[in-house]
């Protein structure tokens, strides 16, 4: 059994007091090792999701059907790279390095959001990702703007602003399709049919099965339970789907007067676990492409480092 030094006990008390007072923990503050590692895991997973998440949308940049849409989509994918950059930077304030985190992604030791293991089969999928996937991400991330760890909370303020722009462009894209030709409307409906359930799974397993939730709530890294956020998202989406003139693929979706919320059908958690395990439609494709980009770029990074060393500048 280890004894806690009085100094450390005082530090821990200061940490607890900061969290209890809803103030921010900053990089130089003492923090419990488990708090640090939980944050590194979560921020890294978030950063990885941003850069893997570029792939399904980049899939449509070269086929965007108008120059205006192409510009919007390019800007959106660029934003995701930017989010990746400042999230990796936030993780670096906790002592992790970007190279080490990327290595963990490439070797499967860290995860990214499972949603990006689904394919973008039509142009309408770009709209569905914006409306549903970015919408779900915002629902998850807005509370993170008040996360107890300062650099993460501040990064999320910026991320959420941009995500809310992405969500609106996705909605507007779908609205244009829904009101367009019959073929465009059908394309939009098909995309929503395929993305609805995976979007609900983005909030994670049900509360009684969520392994990390309780401690994260206590540390104020997390503010609401998975099921609470999922319900909030459903309640937001139903009227939006009506306004879009599209249906959500759930016959059990009905307003519950007593609860003041929409009831919805049960989620296929078997699919969720399978995709998480690696058996989704694109798991292998996504990670292989990421690894390949990294490997093919190795000589470029080495050249930049060698040049910087020769000329006395810091490398990338």
């Amino acid at each position, binding site marked *: 059994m280890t004894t806690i030094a009085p100094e450390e006990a005082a530090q821990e008390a200061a940490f607890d007091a900061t969290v209890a007072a809803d103030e921010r923990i900053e990089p130089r503050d003492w923090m419990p090792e488990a708090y640090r590692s939980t944050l590194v895991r979560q921020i890294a997973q978030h950063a990885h999701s941003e*850069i893997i998440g*570029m*792939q399904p949308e*980049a899939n449509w*940049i*070269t*086929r*965007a*059907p*108008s*120059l*205006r*849409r*192409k*510009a919007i989509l*390019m*800007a959106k*994918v*660029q934003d995701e*790279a*930017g989010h*990746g*950059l400042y999230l*990796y930077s936030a993780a670096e304030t906790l002592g992790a390095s*970007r190279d080490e985190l990327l290595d963990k992604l490439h070797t499967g030791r860290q995860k990214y959001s499972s949603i990006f293991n689904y394919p973008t089969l039509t*142009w309408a999928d770009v709209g569905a990702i914006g409306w549903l996937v970015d919408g779900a991400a915002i629902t998850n991330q807005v509370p993170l703007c008040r996360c107890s760890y300062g650099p993460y909370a501040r990064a999320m303020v910026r991320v959420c602003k941009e995500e809310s722009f992405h969500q609106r462009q996705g909605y507007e894209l779908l609205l*244009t399709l829904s009101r*367009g*030709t019959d*073929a*465009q409307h059908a394309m939009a409906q098909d995309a929503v049919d395929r993305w609805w359930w995976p979007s609900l799974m983005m909030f994670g397993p049900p509360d009684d099965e969520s392994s990390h939730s309780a401690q994260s709530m206590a540390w104020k890294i997390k503010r609401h339970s998975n099921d609470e956020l999922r319900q909030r998202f459903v309640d937001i989406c139903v009227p939006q789907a009506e306004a879009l003139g599209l249906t959500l693929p759930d016959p059990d979706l009905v307003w519950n007067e007593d609860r003041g919320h929409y009831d919805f059908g049960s989620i296929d958690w078997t699919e969720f676990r399978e995709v998480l395990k690696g058996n989704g439609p694109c798991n292998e494709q996504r990670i292989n*492409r990421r690894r*390949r*980009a990294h490997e*093919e*770029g*190795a*000589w*470029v*990074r*080495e*050249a*930049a480092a*060698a*040049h*910087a060393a*020769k*000329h006395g500048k810091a490398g*990338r």
Partner: protein
Amino acid sequence: MRDTVTTPALPLGDDALILSHRLGEWAGQAPVLEEEVALANIALDLLGQARVLLSLAGDEDELAYLREEREFRNLQLVEQPNGDFAHTIARQLYFSTYQELLFEQLADGDTELAPLAGKAVKEVAYHRDHATQWTLRLGDGTDESRTRMQHALDALWRFTGEMFEPVPGLESLPWATFHDVWTTRITATVEQATLRLPEGPQRGAWTAGAGRQGLHTEPFGRLLAEMQHLHRSHPGATW
């Protein structure tokens, strides 16, 4: 074939459109995250230029999506596949150095292109600086990067002569001076990067000015097939 559009906005718009498209192909595959942001940034600048220029020539989407290959007036240089990162940088160095000279001149003139050129020249100065910095890093980096960078400069050299064929409608610009200044600037960068200026001809045997006349290289047909497919599959639809 629709009426031939004669404004110089068309060939210059096509240059920006096609190079932007090529740079967009890098999304998700750049060698380092900072370059995802940088390459997308350049692609977005060029797409913005293309939209203004094509709108001077007609309807931007009609021009981008409904023309056939022989109706495009872009340089063959900008349609060349990305290749490795060194090829992308060499293409950008050659093109941005040219575009900067051209736009500086146009910005000072009184054609309909002056407002766009005045705004774009600041963007292009950044594009040229980005390509220059990478040429220096790759040329004066490792043995492998030096070999790759030299190879890329050599491979694309034969597409550079076309840039100095006068663009129809802009015959009064100092094209010979552009060529001289361009060569001076490229030489300076290449030498600083410890590389050598390619020695071969700056044009292929039958391709002098070809892109500007609607004659393109094999990869261009595939680029257009991909770019235009969805738009053409839904005639008359709004996006």
